[in-house]
């Protein structure tokens, strides 16, 4: 007890010394810290709604506690595990494919010689980022629609029987993955292009004088130099692994129950379940569940990375 008090005091006095020393820096940081406190930490007190039977006339703090009852619907019919699994797998798949593609695109674009061609192709690859999921949803429907879709028209003109893609849940993870990569890879590649441009061009020159061809230069110079960027990007993405990109799933799959087993993620399940009965406690419970799992995943991944190479860890 005593000793603890002493160390506490020591820490505090260290802190105040620190403040004294860097007054200007602390003042400059203050607004940002305050913003984070007000907009990120204070609202967390609202999380207690997840454990309450919320009543409008009693408010967040006045409502009665009801234990874990708000979490029950998530696991009521065994769907809780399925949607958690789907959310994680989808994010892993999307994470790997979209980042991998982005790195490839970034390398291709930086290796291009014609300036005009470079700019044009980069713009075209970037363009899908600006297309909203609502529009993408319409694309998807018009490609795979059984009666009038492009796919079945092509198949018919090739003399093949039409396929009803909307009754084949198994192919949807891939469809979603393709559209996700298509939409994001241009955007993500910009970051990698920046990282590659930052590499000292003298290294490349020296390598080509020593006889390294383009593949060797990529393999031994480009990839190692952007590795820290890749790791940071992956870590940042891992943080949102429990959050399904709601808009993407909702617009591509919509209300089509046949596909739910393969495509349902936490966000879409919660949205569907609660659209009918506006229970604030249950929605809060769902996002509480997501947040806790996210936290666990980040901690685990970060610790693993720390063990492998401390420099790459986030904190």
């Amino acid at each position: 007890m005593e000793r603890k008090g002493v160390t506490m005091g020591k820490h505090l006095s260290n802190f105040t010394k620190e403040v004294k020393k860097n007054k200007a820096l602390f003042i400059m940081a203050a607004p940002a810290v305050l913003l984070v406190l007000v907009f990120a930490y204070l609202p967390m007190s609202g999380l207690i709604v997840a454990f309450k039977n919320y009543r409008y006339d009693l408010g967040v703090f006045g409502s009665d506690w009801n234990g874990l009852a708000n979490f029950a619907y998530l696991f009521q019919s065994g769907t809780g595990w399925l949607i958690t699994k789907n959310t994680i797998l989808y994010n892993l798949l999307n994470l790997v494919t979209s980042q991998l593609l982005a790195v490839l695109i970034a390398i291709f674009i930086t290796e291009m010689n014609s300036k005009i061609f470079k700019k044009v192709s980069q713009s075209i690859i970037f363009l899908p980022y600006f297309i909203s999921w609502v529009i993408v949803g319409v694309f998807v429907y018009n490609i795979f629609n059984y009666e009038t879709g492009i796919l079945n028209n092509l198949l018919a003109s090739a003399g093949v029987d039409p396929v009803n893609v909307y009754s084949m849940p198994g192919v949807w993870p891939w469809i979603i993955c393709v559209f996700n990569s298509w939409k994001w890879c241009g955007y993500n590649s910009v970051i990698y292009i920046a990282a590659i441009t930052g590499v000292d061009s003298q290294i490349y020159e020296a390598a080509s004088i020593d006889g390294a061809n383009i593949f060797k230069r990529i393999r031994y110079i480009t990839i190692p130099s952007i590795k820290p960027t890749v790791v940071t990007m992956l870590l940042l993405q891992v943080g949102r692994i429990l959050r399904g990109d709601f808009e993407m799933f909702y617009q591509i799959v919509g209300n089509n129950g046949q596909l739910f087993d393969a495509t349902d993620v936490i966000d879409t399940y919660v949205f569907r379940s609660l659209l009918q009965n506006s229970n604030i406690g249950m929605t809060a419970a769902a996002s509480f569940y997501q947040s806790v799992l996210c936290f666990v995943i980040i901690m685990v991944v970060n610790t693993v990375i720390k063990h492998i190479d401390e420099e790459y860890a986030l904190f």
Partner: protein
Amino acid sequence: MKRKGLRKALAAAMAMALAAGTMSGCGSAPAKENNAAAEGTSTSQATSAAAGKLDTSKEVELVMYVISDRPAGQDAVDENLNKLLKEKLNCTLKINWIGWAEYANKYPLLFTSGEQFDMAYSATWLNFVSLAQKGAFKSLDELWPTYAPNNFAATSEEAKQQATISDHYYCVPALHATYNAYGPLYRTDIMEGTDWDGKMETFDDIEKYCDIVKETHPEMEPIDQYSTAPELQYLYMKSQGMAELSNGVRYLWYDPSEENPKVFSNYDYEGTPAFLDKMATWNQKGFFSKSALSDTDSTKIQNGKAALKIHNTETYKGLAISHPEYKLAYSNMEKSVAHLPYTQDCMTISNNSKNPERAMAFWELLTSDQEVYDAFMYGVEGTSYKLNDKGQFEITDPDVYNTNAMWAGVTDSLNRDQNGTPDSYTTMIDGFEAGIKSGEGKEKYVGFTFDTSGVETEIAACGNVQQQYWWPLELGYTDASTALADYQSKMETAGIDKIKEEAQKQLDAFVASQK
């Protein structure tokens, strides 16, 4: 010195957290005082002659929330209405809109944010009952009879019964009768020159009609089905005279013609397998798209891409007015026509309204004064609407202003028909009203509301199963021989039996109270 500063900062942070806490709490505390004050004044007023006592010496602004997008021509309408209100009640009205794109999220937040407003539109489809159970609205026990006595007197007993949640009035239902009639609305222009017999009374007739559409207009989808819940089984059950437990629970049914009706589910019903077989055939024949549940186009019948849609009489009226060239016809297949719940459209008063008395007095005026009603509903005569010699109104430009979105204000005694309303609609509605006998068939159960507060978890889970397994089954996408059993087992794990039990208990209590 410094340490003190740190402590101060911590204290400030705590204070802010506390402030946030009281902010969310303050919605309740003043409201309670208000309530008490209102009760105090109104009881004394109730003894002396009531409504005349309203103090209108101070000018107030009433704020009302409705669900819709703000019309471009609203300013002119407001100005005209407020001139009238200023003179009659020394108040003005400010309408706030919650747009269609955001109402599902924003509407429940109205009651949590602590925002000051007086009135809000509410409805069964906005979860009126569940919101009332959770204390979102002000109790109207004293306000309603005191400040809107004529409205109170004109409201039917069934309507009052529905406005009552946990022994208090929480809304003023619309003085407007709506009916549970349901059925196909269908184009007859495309049937000209075919050997169609013109009959539309049963599911077999729908099938015959769709066969002809498929043959003569292969580019059209015979039945308008997109990504929302299919209406086919709902209509089928209604055509058999069965009643759904509630709007949100369309998988539990009862037979209102029985003395003591038993609640049963989709898979308990004996007609279900045969019905599903029929749907599988319809699917084979291509009456609706095999990808319909992913189709987000909700305007297929409006745009001439579909021939028949299953919906209510109001949809029929709206489409018949906007598309006279389709020569739309309607056939009601509901076996037991009754009124719809009166809470279909209703007005609620906010817990933190500063002028609930004036708001209620305004409501009284709106629902009894033709001049105010016209100015509120239709806008400015000559500018936003015109009256023809039959007293029907015609909207000048629907893009500028097209009747008020506060549907709870619609009052049958003051309401005007819209120019172009088909005669068949008017005769049909008169027929419904004439056919309804109080206390018989479904009319006996109009006052029944299913209180879901004990089974919310199960309802959330079952609603999901319904969408995932029943919708595809209903449209014949999955094979009924195996998928029906699958659906049943999923429903059982989701807790349907608990809902059934709770529903049976409430229904029995309702039946007992009716005797």
